[in-house]
């Protein structure tokens, strides 16, 4: 019993129309996906469902639940890629064999009727050495010769015919390399969020990374100038080396690559302020503010207390409103009041932790606050990556590039010659191209010093007019 279904499926995937449908579907799906922010682009460590709801509202939440936010790992998209793989395989399988056979067994001898019927054919006067001169000329112009009796064939650029199949094979290798990640152990990709001076271990590996410090510098216009992480790599707990990791300069170690992916804003841990009497210069004491865990008031023994009236962890002026944009102490600003012993009302003041030189000193204020010390840290986000499939992908791309060169920068052409009586009939045939063939043929004739007697349907003079 013939498997009609399997045969029909095979024939479906062997058709170029199917391939075009698959390619177009991938393009359209990709276009849709590009208009919706994908899950791999949202901030690190945030829950996707919550993020889409808070950022884009219920529309965003429905996008997430429909799966449109992981378009490129969805089963629809992966099926398209599988279909592409199938199409590439079947199309090439069906066509390579017949192509090789037809190229290898192509006739050398062509009848006079065939030659004269070609758009580009000439008849030249034949002398004793004409055929030899023609053969020599063809060889000079890099044609491969084949002879059969009174017929001669010059062929050039046959490799260009294999070009499309080389491209297809290259693309198959690329897709295989990309899909290699499903095999266990061959792929690892994680973001490592490492606070300053902390160490993070990469699971299922002997590696740990310690963030010794993250440094970032800016240009005058506010754009980033450079940023890097000074990191220590530990292998099984033992220090292996200290490295600077920055964009375009990853750390490569034992099959793993560590990249500078991004960073979190600098956060302030605590600040130490000294209180001085503005007029006498005497120091009243110090107050240490833990910015992650502020107390309501801080007593200064013998003098009074500092009350925290308002705390903005991430102080920003939006429009004409003062507010805290983030809950993390990124730009901590405190509104305080110093109440001396015995008094009910004190002096109001503002502390800008990140800007110690900014001091608000009202005329009536007696006490000045000076920042003595501050502690902050910046968390770096590194990416640990290991993909045994990536060299495969790049090899596949290389193969495809070779195929592209063969297909588009080399052309397959043949020159047929038939000696009959006192004439030599020639024609030039190009595979899927016409322009430039006439120039080629006339150059060969010129090298062979053969004079044309008769011209084909599309003669040289007309082609000389060509495109204006």
């Amino acid at each position, binding site marked *: 019993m013939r498997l009609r279904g399997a045969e029909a499926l095979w024939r479906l995937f062997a058709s*170029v129309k199917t391939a075009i449908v698959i390619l*177009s579907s991938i393009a359209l799906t*990709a276009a849709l996906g590009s208009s919706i922010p994908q899950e791999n682009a949202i901030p690190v460590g945030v829950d996707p469902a919550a993020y889409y709801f808070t950022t884009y509202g219920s529309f965003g939440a429905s996008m997430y639940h429909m799966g449109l936010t992981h378009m490129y790992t969805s089963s629809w998209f992966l099926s398209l890629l599988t279909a592409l793989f199938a199409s590439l395989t079947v199309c090439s399988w069906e066509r390579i064999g017949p192509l090789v056979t037809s190229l290898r067994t192509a006739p050398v001898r062509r009848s006079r009727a065939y030659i004269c019927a070609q758009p580009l054919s000439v008849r030249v006067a034949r002398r004793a050495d004409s055929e030899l001169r023609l053969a020599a000329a063809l060889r000079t112009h890099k044609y491969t010769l084949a002879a059969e009796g009174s017929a001669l064939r010059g062929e050039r650029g046959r490799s260009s015919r294999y070009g499309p199949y080389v491209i297809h094979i290259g693309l198959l290798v690329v897709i295989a390399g990309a899909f290699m990640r499903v095999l266990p152990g061959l792929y690892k990709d994680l973001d490592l969020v490492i606070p300053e001076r902390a160490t993070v271990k990469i699971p299922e590996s002997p590696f740990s990374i310690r963030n010794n410090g993250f440094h970032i510098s800016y240009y005058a216009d506010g754009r980033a100038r450079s940023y890097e992480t000074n990191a220590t790599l530990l292998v099984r707990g033992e220090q292996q080396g200290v490295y600077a990791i*920055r964009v375009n300069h990853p750390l490569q170690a034992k099959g793993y690559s560590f990249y500078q992916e991004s960073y979190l804003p600098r956060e302030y841990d605590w600040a130490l302020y000294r209180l001085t009497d503005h007029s006498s210069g005497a120091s009243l004491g110090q107050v240490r503010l833990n910015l992650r865990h502020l107390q309501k008031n801080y007593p200064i023994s013998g003098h009074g207390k500092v009350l925290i009236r308002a705390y903005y962890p991430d102080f920003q002026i939006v429009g004409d409103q003062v507010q805290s944009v983030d809950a993390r102490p990124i730009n901590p600003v405190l509104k305080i009041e110093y109440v001396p012993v015995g008094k009910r009302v004190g002096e109001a003041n503002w502390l800008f932790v990140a800007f110690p030189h900014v001091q608000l000193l009202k005329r009536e204020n007696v006490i000045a606050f000076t920042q003595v010390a501050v502690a902050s840290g910046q968390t770096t986000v590194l*990416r640990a990556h290991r993909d045994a499939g990536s060299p495969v992908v790049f090899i596949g791309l290389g193969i*495809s590039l070779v195929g592209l060169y063969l297909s588009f920068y080399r052309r397959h052409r043949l020159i047929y010659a038939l000696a009959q009586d006192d004439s030599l009939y020639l024609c030039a045939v190009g595979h899927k191209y016409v322009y430039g063939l006439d120039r080629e043929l006339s150059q060969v004739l010129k090298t062979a010093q053969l004079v044309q007697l008769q011209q084909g349907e599309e003669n040289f003079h007309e082609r000389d007019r060509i*495109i204006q």
Partner: protein
Amino acid sequence: MKGIELSSSQFLLSMAFAAYIVATVLYWIGTLNAERGLMGKASQRAATLCAMSGVAIHAVGLLMRGFSSGHAPVSDMYEFMGFWAFAIMLGLVLIERLYQSSTLGAFAAPTAVFVMAYANLFPHQAKPLIPALQSYWLYIHVTTAALGEGVLTVGFAAALLYLVRSASDPSQLFGGRLRALEYTLATALIAFVVVLSSAGMHALGITLLDWNAPLWLGGRSTGGVFGALVYCTFLIGCYAVWRVYSGRTLTGLVSPLVQQLRLRDLDELSYRSIAIGYPIFTLGAIVFAMLWAQEAWGSYWSWDPKETWALITWLYYTVYLHLRLSRGWQGNRAAWLAVSGFAVILFLLIGVNFLIVGLHAYALPGA
């Protein structure tokens, strides 16, 4: 020294822009007079010479800008769009030489002028690179991709020329397709006028169109986009009025001027341009991009909108080649595909940067 280099490079880039404009005018004169023998031929030859000198001057200007800024001159919108215009003119000059076509310039040169005028809308000053761009790949990936896109754009110009030529033949182009061609030409002309005049006003410091969005639209500063939209609407109105009162069409005006060209040659010209540009585009925009992404971010593909649209553009031209080579889509159908391909490239290079947020969004206006 660096200051002198920068201002000299700026001078050369402006000279190149002027050369392209002069070349465009000469190409148009050449096409108009193509039937009148000598004047047409002389004009065409002058146009080619002008284009070649423009390309040479532009190349020197780019080199000087590169030296003075310390990085490849393709790091922001101003630099990249300028380089793309250079690639279009370079592609035009080379393909013109290969195929001895001098009418191709009548459509390709104004496209390059359009792109370069658009470039001039952005701030010119050379800025140092942000960390992600501090790599030798900037020289390799962005320039090769731009070269590929330039050659594909020449294919667009040839295809548009094909359609305009075939419009005179009712058996070739009729009904809906003829109307589509008319609207395509109208859109191209209006876009050309808007961008060129905006660039001119920008250069002369005229802030006539620097309107912000009105309050009922949010009242934000839109960098002149709102003013440009109003200007576009005005020009569309002018076009409509012209159509009604003159009873003519743009196609009707332009098509008779190119009747001496052969359809089959234009078809092959468009195909060959795309066939030459496609491998360069693949190499630059896909392969080199993947290599750089691997080195910079640790992953050769992250479905970033720019990457995704580069892939979409690649798939689009792959479909074009398959339809043409395996399904016999030649002539009109192939020409429409090539013309629409330019819209895809425009979205890839401009639309993605401004309409979609992603890794490549550092090329923002004013950035």
